[in-house]
């Protein structure tokens, strides 16, 4: 029974630890991507084609939403024509916290050392700071954001790109878009943690981007931040319907990675649950043996007036005691190990950058682990308990005394 108890404690503890880690890294990833690309991106304008309008008007079974969701039935116009008007409309949505206009374009960054392909993002700094964590992503350049704000020719460059080009804050380099070549000075370096972004992205002022990319009006997309990030999919659908622009939530944008995290979390849960399951089997064996060992005691209790329910209750109580002690022990073990793991130093870069293990202390992990243990332990206790309750006292005593 002690081994089963230890198994329950370790099962619950490790369940909590693995869930805390996988969801910790997932939360950190979400924080990173929200702090970089925002909760929703409003991009290409669309118009319904004649087919769509006819379908919406003549077929009651086809909802307007269903038809609008069919990209092939729409005519798309690249970018946002009137960002100011769209921003004003977006701010009418209750969940929208801020909107930033972004003009994006491909450029060649030409330092004295080498050329690299890059993506330039024309932004209004103060707007962008409201929809991203750009302010806290600056890694080199003292007073750099103010330097950038005050320098029309300033730029914020991804740290990985700066390393490729071997430039540092204060250095200048040329950005070339088509035939247009302009010189800019690096105001600061930023690091989002997402290497794919950090090795290509450059922020410059929106007015400069218009000149460089030769787009005097409009925007590539609007970056939107929300008060409640979890409502992004619903808000994106509404925005798309109302504003007639493509709207993509962060959940859709990062679906691949989020699915990978989800799969990892489920896989870890299933793997660790086997410890609880095996402990449950061990407990089942122990209780089944106990029923066999205690048949005489069961018979004498029945002869005293204890009912079948009383007898099964004894074994269920045994299971419940193991469950309670195992669960509380597992919680303490899980909490302690999770805290210990969060202090382990690692150096991870790629989809995010972190120097320590990321953990997430969530009540749901403790609840799920407990439910798992309840199901396994009580099932393991219930079967021997029912067997004990079915024993006939007369048969047992007769077998013993003759």
């Amino acid at each position, binding site marked *: 029974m002690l081994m089963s108890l230890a198994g329950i404690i370790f099962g619950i503890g490790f369940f909590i630890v693995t869930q805390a880690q996988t969801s910790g890294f997932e939360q950190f990833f979400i924080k990173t991507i929200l702090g970089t690309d925002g909760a929703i991106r409003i991009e290409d304008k669309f118009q319904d084609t004649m087919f769509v309008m006819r379908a919406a008007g003549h077929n009651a079974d086809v909802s307007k939403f269903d038809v609008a969701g069919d990209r092939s039935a729409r005519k798309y116009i690249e970018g946002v024509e009137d960002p100011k008007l769209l921003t004003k409309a977006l701010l009418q949505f209750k969940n929208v916290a801020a909107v930033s206009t972004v003009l994006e374009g491909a450029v060649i960054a030409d330092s004295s050392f080498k050329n690299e392909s890059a993506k330039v993002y024309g932004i209004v700094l103060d707007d962008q700071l409201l929809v991203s964590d750009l302010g806290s992503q600056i890694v080199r350049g003292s007073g750099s954001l103010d330097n950038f704000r005050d320098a029309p020719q300033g730029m914020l460059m991804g740290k990985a790109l700066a390393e490729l080009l071997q430039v540092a804050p204060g250095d200048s380099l040329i950005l070339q878009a088509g035939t247009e070549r302009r010189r800019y000075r690096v105001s600061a370096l930023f690091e989002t943690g997402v290497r794919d972004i950090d090795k290509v992205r450059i922020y410059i002022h929106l007015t400069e981007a218009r000149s460089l990319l030769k787009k005097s009006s409009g925007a590539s997309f609007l970056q939107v931040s929300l008060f409640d990030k979890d409502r992004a999919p619903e808000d994106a659908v509404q925005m798309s319907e109302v504003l007639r622009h493509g709207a993509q939530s962060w959940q859709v944008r990062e679906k691949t990675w989020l699915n990978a995290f989800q799969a990892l979390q489920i896989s870890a849960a299933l793997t660790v649950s086997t410890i609880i399951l095996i402990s449950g089997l061990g407990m089942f064996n122990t209780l089944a043996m106990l029923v066999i060992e205690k048949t005489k*005691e069961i018979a004498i209790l029945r002869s*005293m*007036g*204890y*009912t079948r329910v009383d007898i099964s209750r004894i074994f269920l109580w045994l299971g419940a005691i193991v469950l309670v002690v195992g669960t509380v022990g597992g919680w303490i073990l899980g909490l302690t190990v999770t805290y210990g793991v969060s202090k382990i130093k690692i150096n991870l870069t790629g989809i995010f950058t972190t120097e320590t293990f990321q953990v997430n202390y969530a009540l749901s992990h403790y609840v799920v682990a407990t439910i798992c243990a309840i199901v396994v332990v009580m099932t393991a206790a219930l079967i021997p308990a029912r067997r004990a309750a079915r024993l006939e*006292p007369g*048969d047992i005593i007769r077998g*013993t005394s003759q």
Partner: protein
Amino acid sequence: MEKNTQKPALRCENLHRYLGEGEGRVHVLRGVSFEAQPGHVTAIVGPSGCGKSTLLYLLGLLDQPNDGSIWIGDELMSNSSDIDRTAARGEHIGFVFQFHFLMQEFSALDNVMMPMRKLGRLTPEQMEERARGLLTDVGLGDKTHRLATQLSGGEQQRVAVARALANQPTIILADEPTGNLDVKNSTLVFDLLTKLAKENGQAVVIVTHNPEIANRCDETKPMRDGLFVS
């Protein structure tokens, strides 16, 4: 022998019981009728396999007859539900077996309190007081807190007697209560059982092989091949 004219505490009529399955099926009891009067000690004697223990378990509602009737007081119990029979056992019947069947992990006091805890008529303090009184009656007043494993065979059987008397049952059924004891302890346990039962007006039915014990009972009923013989 003086005939008791009181209403019987326990009565059965025409009991039949088969044991085993198929070709191994044996007709153990072949229409047994019996009465146990309050304050009266009856011994059932007979060779092994004659059906005396089977009869005792039927009378104790631990088993059900294939045919026939059993009354506890005025209540017909032979066809009642498992719950009713269990409740009747707790309230009306005390058992003493050949082996004491004490709970080894518990003290003598706890063992005696166990039937009272289930019946729930007394408060915990009253239960403890009664259990102490019963253990004193059986000569174990100074060993109430000893575990069952720390008592001798005779002492364990005396605890079993005290336990059987715990709920003040109207019927005491004893299956070879002295079968596992030496002569001295056999006499001690039998005397205690009959003395306490008579004091409380309880009907006692003892199944025994021991002729000395049987001779000291108020009545002896010999059994052979599933029937009482005169």
